[in-house]
C-alpha cells in the first residue's frame, strides 16, 4: 500500500465512521485523562514528600553503634568512626553519585558576641559539626568553603586594637608587634535555629526578632578548646566564624563548619586520633530508584542507615503510585476492549468494502495495515484529548488546592508533576491500547477470501 493511499483511506474512513470511532476514542480519552491526572498528582506529591519533606536521594550512614547501656552511662564499644577506606567502599556502591563524610568537633567551643544583633553580648557553649562544603554547594554556594591552611590571604597587618575589613580576624597582635588579618571561618546553620530563636527563645528572653537573611555575614568570636563547664587542660584557639548561609544539611542545633577545618581542630585540640575518622557520611544516590539498593549495600558494609521516615514515605508513595497506575491500566484495558468492539463492528459494516479493496489488489497485510493505522490515529487523537483534559483538570485542581487550602509547611506551588515523559508515555499507551484492541478484528477481517465476502453481500 502506498503512503498516500494509506493516508487517503484513513482520512476517508475515519471521517465517514466518526460516530463509531468517536465512541471508542471517548473511553480511551477519559481513561488516559484519569490516569495522567492521578499519576501527575501522585508524582507531584511524591516529589514534595521525597524531595523536600524527606529528601530521600540522600541518606546518612553511621557506624553501627555497639553501645552498652549501663544505668545512666553509655559505654561505647568498638570502632565508631568511618575511615577513608570505608568512604571509598561507599563510593563504589552501584548508583552512588557522591559520598560526603561528616565529622563532629571533638573539642569544646565557647562563643561570645551578639551585641551587634540583639544589643547584648552573650556567651554560650557551641556544638559544631564539620561537613564537606560540596554537600551544601547548592544551598549556600561558594561562600561556605574550607579555609586555606594558611589563612593569611588577606595579608594585611593589624594592631592589637585595630580591626580588619570584611569580618576578618586579627591574629597574633600583641604588645610586641602587629598581627595579621585572617579570613574568618565560614559556617552554616539550620533554619530551624532561627525559627527556634524567633519562636520560644526570643520571647523567653525578651529579645528582638531577627530576619534570617540579615544574619548572613554576622561574625561571632569562638574560643575552640575553651569551656564554661570544665576548665580545659589543653590550649585554646581563638578564632572568628562568619555566617555564610542556611541549609537543611547543617546540624539542627549548633554550627556547621567546613570539614577540613574541623579535622584540623580535632587534631590540634581534641583527644588522640580525633581527626582521623568520620562520624557519619551522607550518601547521594544518582536516582531515587537506586536508594533501596544503596541502603542494603551500606548495611552489608556494617553501617547503619538513618533516614528519618524517608524509607517509609518512599515505600508508601511507591505503593500508592502502583495502585493508581493499576487502576488506570484496568480502566484503559476496559477501554481497549471497547475499542475492540467498535472495530469489530466497523469491520462488519465494512465487510464488503474490504472485499472490494482486496479484489482490486489489496493484500491481507495492506488491509491490516490500514485498520491498524486507523486504530493508531484514533488512539493518538484520543490520547491527545485525554492529555488536554488532564491538563485542564490539573490546572483547575491546582488552583482550587492552592487557594482553597490554608498554608502548611512544604505547601507546594503545584501538587502535580506533569512531566513530558508522562505525556509521552500516556500517548504511547493510548496508541498501544487502540492498536491492541483493533488487532483481533483486523485479523478476522482478512480471514475469508474476497469471493466469499463479495458473494454474500
Amino acid at each position, binding site marked *: *500500500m*502506498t503512503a*498516500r*493511499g*494509506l493516508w*487517503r*483511506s484513513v482520512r*476517508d474512513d475515519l471521517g*465517514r465512521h466518526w460516530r463509531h470511532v468517536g465512541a471508542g476514542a471517548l473511553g480511551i480519552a477519559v481513561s488516559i485523562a484519569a490516569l495522567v491526572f492521578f499519576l501527575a498528582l501522585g508524582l507531584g506529591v511524591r516529589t514534595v514528600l521525597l524531595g523536600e519533606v524527606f529528601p530521600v536521594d540522600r541518606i546518612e550512614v553511621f557506624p553501627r553503634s555497639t553501645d552498652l547501656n549501663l544505668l545512666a552511662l553509655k559505654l561505647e564499644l568498638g570502632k565508631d568512626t568511618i575511615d577513608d577506606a570505608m568512604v571509598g567502599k561507599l563510593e563504589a556502591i552501584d548508583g552512588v553519585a557522591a559520598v560526603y563524610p561528616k565529622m563532629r568537633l571533638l573539642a569544646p567551643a565557647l562563643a561570645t558576641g551578639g551585641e551587634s544583633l540583639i544589643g547584648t553580648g552573650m556567651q554560650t557553649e557551641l556544638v559544631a559539626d564539620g561537613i564537606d562544603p560540596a554537600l551544601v554547594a547548592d544551598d549556600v554556594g561558594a561562600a561556605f568553603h574550607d579555609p586555606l591552611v594558611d589563612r593569611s590571604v588577606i595579608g594585611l597587618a593589624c594592631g592589637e586594637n585595630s580591626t580588619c575589613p570584611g569580618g576578618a580576624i586579627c591574629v597574633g597582635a600583641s604588645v610586641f608587634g602587629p598581627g595579621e588579618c585572617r579570613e574568618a571561618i565560614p559556617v552554616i546553620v539550620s533554619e530551624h535555629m532561627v525559627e527556634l530563636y524567633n519562636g520560644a527563645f526570643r520571647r523567653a528572653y525578651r529579645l528582638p526578632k531577627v530576619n534570617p537573611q540579615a544574619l548572613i555575614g554576622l561574625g561571632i568570636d569562638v574560643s575552640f578548646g575553651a569551656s564554661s563547664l570544665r576548665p580545659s587542660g589543653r590550649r585554646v584557639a581563638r578564632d572568628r566564624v562568619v555566617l555564610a548561609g542556611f541549609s537543611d544539611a547543617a546540624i539542627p542545633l549548633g554550627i556547621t563548619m567546613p570539614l577540613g577545618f574541623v579535622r584540623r581542630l580535632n587534631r590540634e585540640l581534641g583527644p588522640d586520633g580525633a581527626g582521623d575518622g568520620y562520624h557519619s557520611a551522607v550518601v547521594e544516590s544518582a536516582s531515587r530508584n537506586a536508594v533501596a539498593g544503596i541502603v542494603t549495600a551500606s548495611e552489608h558494609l556494617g553501617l547503619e542507615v538513618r533516614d528519618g521516615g524517608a524509607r517509609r514515605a518512599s515505600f508508601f508513595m511507591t505503593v500508592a503510585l502502583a495502585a493508581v497506575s493499576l487502576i488506570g491500566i484496568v480502566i484503559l484495558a476496559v477501554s481497549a476492549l471497547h475499542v475492540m468492539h467498535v472495530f469489530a463492528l466497523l469491520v462488519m459494516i465494512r465487510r*464488503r*468494502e474490504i*472485499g*472490494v*479493496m*482486496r*479484489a*482490486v*489488489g*489489496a*493484500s*491481507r*497485510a*495492506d488491509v491490516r495495515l490500514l485498520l491498524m493505522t486507523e486504530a493508531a490515529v484514533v488512539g493518538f487523537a484520543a490520547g491527545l484529548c485525554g492529555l488536554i483534559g488532564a491538563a485542564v483538570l490539573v490546572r483547575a485542581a491546582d488552583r482550587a488546592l492552592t487557594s482553597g487550602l490554608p498554608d502548611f509547611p512544604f505547601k507546594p506551588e503545584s501538587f502535580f508533576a506533569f512531566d513530558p515523559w508522562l505525556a509521552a508515555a500516556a500517548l504511547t499507551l493510548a496508541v498501544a491500547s487502540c492498536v491492541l484492541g483493533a488487532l483481533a478484528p483486523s485479523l478476522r477481517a482478512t480471514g475469508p*477470501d*474476497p*469471493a*466469499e465476502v*463479495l*458473494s454474500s*453481500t
Partner: protein
Amino acid sequence: MIRINGLCKRYPGSEVDVLKGIDLEIAAGDFVSLVGRSGCGKTTLLNIVGGLDFDFEGRVEVDGRDIGSLADRDLARYRRDTVGFVFQAYHLLDHLSCAENVALAARFGAGGGSGAKRERARAEEVLESVGLAGAADRRPTRLSGGERQRVAVARALFNRPRLLLLDEPTGNLDTATGGEILDLLSTLHSEMALTILAATHDGAIEAVGRRLLRISDGRLAERLEDVR
C-alpha cells in the same frame, strides 16, 4: 493466456462439487462467453480465475503463473496488475466519487504510486473510454444501473489489465442498456489487446464472444462456432 486442468471446486459444508474437473484453454486476445443455467458455477469459475477464490483443486495457470501456488501478496498483485474484474453487483464504494472508485487500485500501489495528478488523469481517461466523461466527481449512488456498470468496467480497466473478467455484465440491465454495454465491450476488445471472459446466464442470448462455453452439471461443453 489461461490454461486450466482438472479444476474441481466444492464449497465448504456442501455435499457436491460445483465444478467437476474442468479443462480449458483460452488464448490471449480471445473473447469468450461463458453460459449456463443460474447456479451452474459461472461465478465460481470467474472468481477462481480472478484470484478471488483460492480454495480449489486442480491447476489454474494465467500467463504461465500457477494461481493456486501464489502467496497472498503475490496473489494481490496478480489481482491488481493482471486482472480486471467486473462484479455482477458492481460493488462500487458509495463513499467515494466515481474517479476515486476507478482509481482505488492506485491506493494499493497500482501504477507504482504515480502521483495524485496522473492517477486522476488516468481515471478520467478510462471513464471517458466507457462513455462517462464528466462523471468523475459524481457519487455512484447518483448514477443509473447502466452507468454504474460502466464505472465498474472503468475500474477494472484502470490498471491496463491483460485479462478482463465480467460476471453477468448485462444481468441487472434492461435490454437496451445491456446492448450498449455489450457494444462497449466489443469496442474495448478490439481497441485494447484484451482477453475477455464474460459469464452470461442462459436467457441472455446476446452473448458476444467469438467462443461460447457452456457449463452444465459442473463440466464444460464448447460450441466452437462464432456466435455472431
